């Protein structure tokens, strides 16, 4: 293993992979990516692959809009088919309050240039004819939202990064970080120590543990979210559907499988990755309420991943107060895959030029000293 590195990235999920590539592309190539298991073994490889811009905070909307732009050209740039489909996101609401929240969200999104719009239930059914609108009060739709294949995205980023000189060390665990003064001076791994220029904490649900090794407390909590996939059926839905009423999401992959999940409200923080019958019952019930025609479609597999949840459901990005060479890139709260391409560029620009973008200023760890106004539309 390399004994010194300009940048040590901890975690080979979409964030670590995208950042490794963006750094290498800028000529910063003495980069080591450390991964405790293998690329995509954490949240990225367990996620639904949705790419949504319809959020309720300015930063989440902006990051997602930038990412969608990058996703549009990423396949060509990386030379990998990332299975990016811009079939739109249809967001369902079932109460007056939820409709009002949707109206406000669309107003903010339109102000920021996002072509989302508020729909009647009938208009929603035009987009997805199999949707049962009996209980639907309103919906919003953004045609440029979509989904992609997380494995292909990470593979594409890592392959190009490695061609440019980045080293990937899989099955290599970070066991300790040694801070001295205002810097981390050593990253200790299960395969020996590395002297880092910068250390990037892209460890997802484990970012709190990594940070604690350097004596820094993050407000993030790991929360299990379960997901299931079906056998493939003929392609019938280009749109990805979510509901702010019950937190369900589902879409159809290029293979024809329906992939989706639903958040269970009483899930306690922790590293539980087991699969529950309760999830499958809840998900099946809510899915069939919206799309009754799927009753005979069989569930093939279920699994779980961990959201890395912050108090305002927005990521923590940029240098750590008191440890300037320790860069946070975590806390995505279930939205990491959607915004990773944009986040990677903001962070790579900062690492290259030392200048923070407005988004990095706003999403720094320091914000938790102030009053918190968070993202309202978290699903899954």
């Amino acid at each position, binding site marked *: 293993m390399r004994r010194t590195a300009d940048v040590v990235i901890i975690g080979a999920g979409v964030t670590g992979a995208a950042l490794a590539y963006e750094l290498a592309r800028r000529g910063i190539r003495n980069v080591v990516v450390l991964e405790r298991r293998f690329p995509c073994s954490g949240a990225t490889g367990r996620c639904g692959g949705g790419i949504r811009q319809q959020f309720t905070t300015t930063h989440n909307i902006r990051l997602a809009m930038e990412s969608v732009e990058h996703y549009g050209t990423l396949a060509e740039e990386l030379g990998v088919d990332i299975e990016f489909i811009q079939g739109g996101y249809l967001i369902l609401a079932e109460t007056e309050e939820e409709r009002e929240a949707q109206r406000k969200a669309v107003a903010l999104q339109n102000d920021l240039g996002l072509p989302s719009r508020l729909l009647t239930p009938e208009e929603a059914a035009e987009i997805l004819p199999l949707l*049962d609108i009996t209980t639907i009060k309103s919906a919003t739709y953004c045609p440029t939202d979509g989904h992609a294949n997380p494995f292909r995205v990470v593979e594409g980023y890592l392959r190009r990064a490695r061609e440019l000189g980045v080293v990937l060390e899989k099955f290599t665990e970070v066991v300790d970080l040694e801070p001295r003064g205002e810097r981390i001076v050593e990253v200790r791994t299960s395969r020996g120590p590395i002297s880092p220029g910068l250390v990037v904490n892209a460890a997802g649900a484990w970012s709190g543990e990594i940070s604690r090794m350097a004596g820094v407390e993050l407000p993030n909590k790991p929360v299990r979210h379960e997901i299931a996939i079906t056998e*493939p059926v003929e392609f019938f839905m280009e749109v990805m559907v979510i509901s702010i009423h019950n937190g369900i999401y589902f879409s159809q992959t290029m293979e024809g499988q329906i992939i989706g999940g639903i958040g269970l409200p009483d899930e306690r923080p922790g590293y539980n990755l087991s699969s529950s019958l309760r999830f499958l019952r809840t998900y099946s019930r809510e899915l069939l309420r919206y799309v009754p*025609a799927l009753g005979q479609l069989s569930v093939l*597999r279920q699994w779980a991943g961990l959201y890395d949840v912050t108090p305002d459901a927005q990521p923590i990005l940029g240098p750590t107060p008191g440890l300037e060479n320790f860069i946070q890139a975590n806390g995505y709260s279930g939205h990491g895959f959607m915004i990773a391409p944009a986040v990677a560029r903001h962070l790579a620009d900062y690492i290259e030029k030392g200048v923070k973008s407005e988004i990095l200023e706003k999403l720094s760890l320091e914000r938790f000293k102030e009053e918190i106004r968070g993202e309202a539309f978290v699903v899954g």
Partner: protein
Amino acid sequence: MESEGDKEAAMTHASRVTRQEPKDEPIVCRCEEVTLPEVVQAIREGYDTVEELKRHLRVGMGPCQGRTCLPLLARVLARETGRSLAEVMEEISTRPPLIPIPFEVWRGK
């Protein structure tokens, strides 16, 4: 609301979805049509654990849940990497349900 035709379309099975051309090489994974040379090439590219191969090639991720192909895959992996079959087999994770079961069964009445 949805017509009978729509319902039928939604429930039509993958068996009717036209996929790739037939392949000449030995098939390791029937559900996902992954061939032996594809597996060997992926291992040589560095996808050298069962879980990585599954994610890279979709091998073992079809309706049989890997029952047929994962033992075959493990043997190829052991041979290519020089590791013991027991060690490779140990890496295989299983995910429920054991057989495909429809949503309406999970929902119950």
